[in-house]
């Protein structure tokens, strides 16, 4: 398996964390810590106090899991929760119903499989995210995982950045086509090979969604790879000292960058970095080599680029062919594919998986993908290294477990936060909206005809559902105590990322499937042969979509 494996030092840190948090919980329950004092402590361990129960967010560093870890997670959701978990847009796993008193025991169980909940919430450096196809993508220039692991260790309990003005999210990417939305993060690192064939970094800063969506600015076109940590320290130090703590809504780094302007912000960062450059936190060749060894190539077999059995299955089984078209992805190694197991069956909460499904996926990973899998920020599970000849077997098993909806990248592959059903921050429910839209577009042939379209739903402006970068974005808003939904179109992730434009006044929950239908109708009528929904929106602008959605009693042509 190629995943980072703890040594004694990593294990000791996680074990000490369990002991520390167990004592913090004890002191809270004994009245030795007030609610206010316990709050940042529990948050930095991923524990929110929610509508019905606490919510615990378990870290899945850069989205990678072993089958052993997934089996353990399945056992945990069965033992401590209602037998299911929710995979989030930060590639983490959330439990919706754990007991506060049980959390130390959950952490202790997680520690046995080299997992934890460190810094999954709170005003600190959060889980670092990356491309779900890291290491196998044909367009990959630099495998980002070794650097992501080095950064995970560096950011874990970083003393200077333990209590920042606000949360701090870092994403890293090493592909030509960005799949980690680096421009929508507080810091985005884009790895590439420079003219000396050495790892270099294009550094983005000040992106973020939430209440004030802003795409990041480039603060440095070229940074030598070994300076990743010290340069981030310079950025975060300037932010820690000068970020706004007086108003939580203006406390993200994007507000500071915008207020100072990128040039002045850069000047301050570079002045700081002049002192930090080449400091001991500079990444050594030896350390990068050590960590990189864990991400060496899998022991791939030498296979032919084609497989007769696969071709025959495609020809004889239309359902398999439909699945392969949407859920199977190219791989750098001949005869292998990556595949996505959809956690978006129509009419179910996006991103949820039961313990039985988790066990099954773990078994599939063991048997067909070197015992390793990934969580995507689109809230699906990925088997990254499956032989072409095994695909139909995997499909049969996945389909029997409800994990083979052929909708990846289509309208019903909805990114969705837990929303008002669970989250105490939410203004409106999001899951029922997702379910209703999925049912509206339940006809698979029609869904495939509509083609690639990303629909993202957030239950509040904190934007956990990334609604700003959805081709269609839906935001739950509160108006006089009732739930309404604001619709935007034209958002996009990727290299040509953009923030969507709101089309007009918001809608009731009941109207939403029809609203989405009308947006799709305009697209289907106006599209050229080559155009995806986003292309048509970009070509025509918002106006024709708006006109049709808000038209009274119009008959669709």
């Amino acid at each position, binding site marked *: 398996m190629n995943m980072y494996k703890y040594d004694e030092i990593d294990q000791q840190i996680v074990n000490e964390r369990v002991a*520390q948090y167990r004592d913090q919980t004890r002191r809270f329950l004994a009245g030795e810590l007030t609610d206010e*004092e316990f709050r940042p402590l529990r948050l930095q361990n991923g524990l929110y106090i929610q509508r019905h129960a606490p919510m615990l967010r378990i870290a899945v560093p850069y989205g990678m899991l072993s089958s052993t870890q997934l089996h353990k997670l399945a056992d945990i959701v069965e033992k401590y929760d209602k037998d299911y978990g929710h995979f989030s847009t930060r590639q983490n796993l959330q439990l919706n119903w754990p007991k506060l008193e049980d959390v130390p025991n959950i952490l202790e169980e997680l520690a046995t499989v080299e997992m934890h909940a460190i810094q999954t919430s709170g005003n600190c450096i959060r889980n670092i995210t990356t491309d779900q196809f890291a290491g196998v993508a044909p367009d990959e220039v630099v495998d980002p995982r070794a650097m992501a692991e080095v950064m995970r260790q560096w950011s874990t309990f970083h003393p200077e950045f333990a209590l920042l003005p606000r949360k701090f999210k870092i994403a890293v990417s090493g592909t030509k086509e960005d799949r980690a939305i680096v421009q929508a993060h507080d810091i985005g690192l884009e790895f590439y090979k420079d003219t000396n064939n050495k790892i270099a970094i294009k550094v983005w800063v000040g992106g973020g969604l939430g209440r004030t969506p802003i795409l990041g600015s480039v603060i440095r076109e070229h940074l030598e790879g070994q300076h990743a940590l010290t340069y981030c320290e310079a950025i975060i130090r300037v932010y820690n000292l000068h970020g706004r703590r007086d108003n939580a809504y203006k406390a993200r780094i994007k507000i500071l960058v915008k207020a100072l302007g990128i040039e002045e912000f850069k000047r301050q960062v570079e002045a700081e970095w002049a002192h930090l450059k080449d400091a001991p936190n500079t990444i050594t060749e030896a350390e990068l080599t050590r960590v990189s060894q864990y991400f060496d190539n899998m022991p791939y077999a030498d296979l032919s680029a084609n497989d007769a059995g696969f071709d025959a299955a495609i020809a004889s089984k239309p359902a398999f062919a439909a699945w392969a078209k949407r859920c199977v992805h190219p791989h750098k190694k001949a005869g292998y594919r990556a595949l996505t197991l959809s956690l978006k069956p129509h009419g179910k909460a996006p991103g949820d998986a039961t313990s039985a499904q988790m066990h099954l996926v773990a078994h599939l990973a063991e048997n067909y993908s070197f015992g390793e899998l990934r969580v995507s920020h689109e809230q699906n599970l990925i088997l990254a290294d499956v032989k072409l000849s095994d695909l139909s077997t995997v499909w049969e098993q996945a389909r029997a477990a409800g994990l083979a909806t052929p909708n990846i990248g289509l309208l019903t592959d909805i990114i969705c936060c837990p929303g008002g059903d669970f989250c105490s921050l939410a203004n409106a429910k999001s899951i029922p909206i997702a379910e209703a839209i999925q049912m509206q577009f339940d006809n698979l042939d029609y869904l495939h005809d509509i083609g690639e379209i990303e629909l993202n739903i957030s239950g509040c402006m904190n934007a956990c559902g990334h609604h700003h970068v959805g081709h269609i974005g839906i935001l739950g808003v509160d108006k006089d105590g009732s739930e309404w939904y604001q619709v935007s179109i034209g958002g996009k992730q990727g290299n040509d990322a953009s923030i969507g434009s709101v089309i007009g006044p918001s809608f009731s929950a009941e109207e939403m499937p029809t609203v989405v239908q009308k947006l799709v109708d305009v697209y289907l009528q106006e599209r050229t042969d080559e155009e995806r929904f986003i292309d048509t929106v970009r070509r025509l602008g918002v106006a024709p979509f708006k006109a049709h959605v808000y038209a009274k009693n119009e008959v669709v042509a």
Partner: protein
Amino acid sequence: MSQLITLNAQTENSIASITENAWTYVKLPASQIEERKQAGKVVLFKLTGENTVSEVQIASTIIPATGNIIVPLTVFIARKSELQSRINLGEVGVWIDTHEIIDHLVEAQADLNELPIIAVHVERFADGRIFSLGTLLRTRYGYKNELRAFGDVLRDQLFFLKRSGFNSYLIRADRDAKDAIAGLQDFTKPYQGAVDDPRPVFQRYNRVAS
């Protein structure tokens, strides 16, 4: 009992001890400025660089005639000539609030090591600026003497304060300082280099991929 924890020299067996405080905190007279509010809520954190002290407050601050004193930064800067002889005797330390700028201290006092103590006051424990201030004082300005955290100082922040260069901690009055000492040892082998040990874990140990 004293609420002051002082880090022991590395040669000693225990990490820290409860010690008696030898310094008097000189306080500014109460401000006449009203609390700042935003959307009806009192603003809890002052902006970095925000001027919160009036000249009247500075002028009317009562400085005890004798003994060891920790003086607010604004008073120290404005009334330095008055304090100079006592600075020379090592009787004067400086009180910095987390929203104040260290450069202002350095402009007034070129050699920080003439100050036997710098005490950083943290009004709310969640104000993590204190960690950058400690780090800068130790690494950028080469400050070697006692660096104290006081104010809303609690057990669960001590490990980070120690790593950021603080070597004494005045625990908030309603908490048990003896209990808080344990917080200094929450973790044995931290990953990243910081003030207390600038070497990251990969420089301190020979880590081998298994």
